[in-house]
């Protein structure tokens, strides 16, 4: 049985044991293209053991102000990525969301877009947030298109916040308000 609130058309979101996510994170982090689309930190190639310790420490924290879900395909139950909320402020009803598909062969087929739609429904209908924001790097047009499809709009750019391959790149901020999401009428029923 799947919880409908966490199920989309292609994927569902799930909670996983530390050892499961740790193996994925350790493996995915060896893909520098993936990591450079996701993070500003240089790769450190942490072991699965270290990732497991990190995730276990997370377990001890208060679960109400952090959300980290795995993304699994509806067909085949393959674990293809993660989606999480950070900088989460209950009293302002605001959070940032981060998503990444570690399994490359699932890129470009709507899985990420579907996972984001599910997360927004969870954020607005269960967490009762007023808005969801995100940061995306200038050199990641595929992600920007996906976020636009879901309803995120540009809120500005942080000029030259990243130095990679000898070039300065902007961080783009995007956001969606609860009212905008409701007006789009996506998956609200």
């Amino acid at each position, binding site marked *: 049985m799947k919880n409908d609130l966490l199920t989309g058309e292609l994927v569902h979101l799930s909670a996983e044991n530390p050892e499961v996510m740790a193996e994925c994170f350790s493996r995915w982090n060896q893909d520098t293209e993936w990591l450079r689309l996701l993070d500003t930190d240089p790769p450190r190639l942490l072991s699965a053991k270290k990732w497991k310790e990190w995730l276990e420490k997370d377990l001890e924290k208060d679960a109400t102000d952090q959300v980290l879900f795995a993304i699994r395909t509806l067909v085949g139950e393959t674990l293809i990525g993660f989606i999480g909320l950070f900088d989460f*402020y209950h*009293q*302002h009803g*605001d959070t940032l969301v981060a998503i990444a598909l570690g399994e490359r062969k699932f890129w470009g087929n709507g899985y990420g877009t579907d996972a984001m739609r599910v997360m927004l429904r969870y954020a607005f209908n269960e967490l009762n947030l*007023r*808005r969801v924001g995100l940061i995306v790097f200038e050199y990641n047009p595929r992600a920007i298109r996906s976020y636009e499809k879901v309803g995120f709009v540009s809120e*500005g*750019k942080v000029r030259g*916040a990243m*130095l990679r391959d000898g070039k300065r790149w902007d961080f783009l901020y995007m956001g969606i308000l609860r009212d905008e999401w409701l007006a789009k009428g996506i998956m609200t029923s």
Partner: protein
Amino acid sequence: MSIDTQLFEGKLIRLAPIDHEKDAEVESHWTHDLSLSRALWRKPAMPLSIAQMKKKYEAIEKEIDESKRLFHFTLRGREDNRLLGFVRIEGIEWTHGIGSLKLAIGDPVEREKGYGSEALQLILRFAFSELNLYRLSAVVGEDNPGALKFFLRFNFVEEVRRRKALLRDGQAWDSIHLGLLRDEWLAMNLKEEDRHEK
């Protein structure tokens, strides 16, 4: 400036370390005006006792020491050494040369006297000439127009408006992200020098 320039010395104020014994009482008093905390942080504003303030100082110095991503200086009167506020550069990412700025004058009666302006000039010089940062960010709430005007006056550029990201007093306000690049700071300084020579 040159190698003998004292980076922490201004005309009215100077940047200095925390005084764990004396500062806690003064700053605890400031925190009882919640507007200061609201202007600086997004978490719920709360007054802090002297004991809580001392613990916070321990935590700040631990973070400076261990994370290497934080600089936190007190602002003090140049003549009488009295505590006026603090300034910090946080969230530094050395790989990319970026950081984020916070500046506070604690007691409302000490504001509008030029201490903040001088503190900002000192910390900008420190960020760009000593830390070699490429850019500095500052985040202000739409409910704090004074702070927005302050940073714009020093050539910060409005870069991001996170719409309705703050909920205060029953009203939703934008969170405004400002940025200043080292090149913009250098150009501003050259203009200043020009003005002085003429």
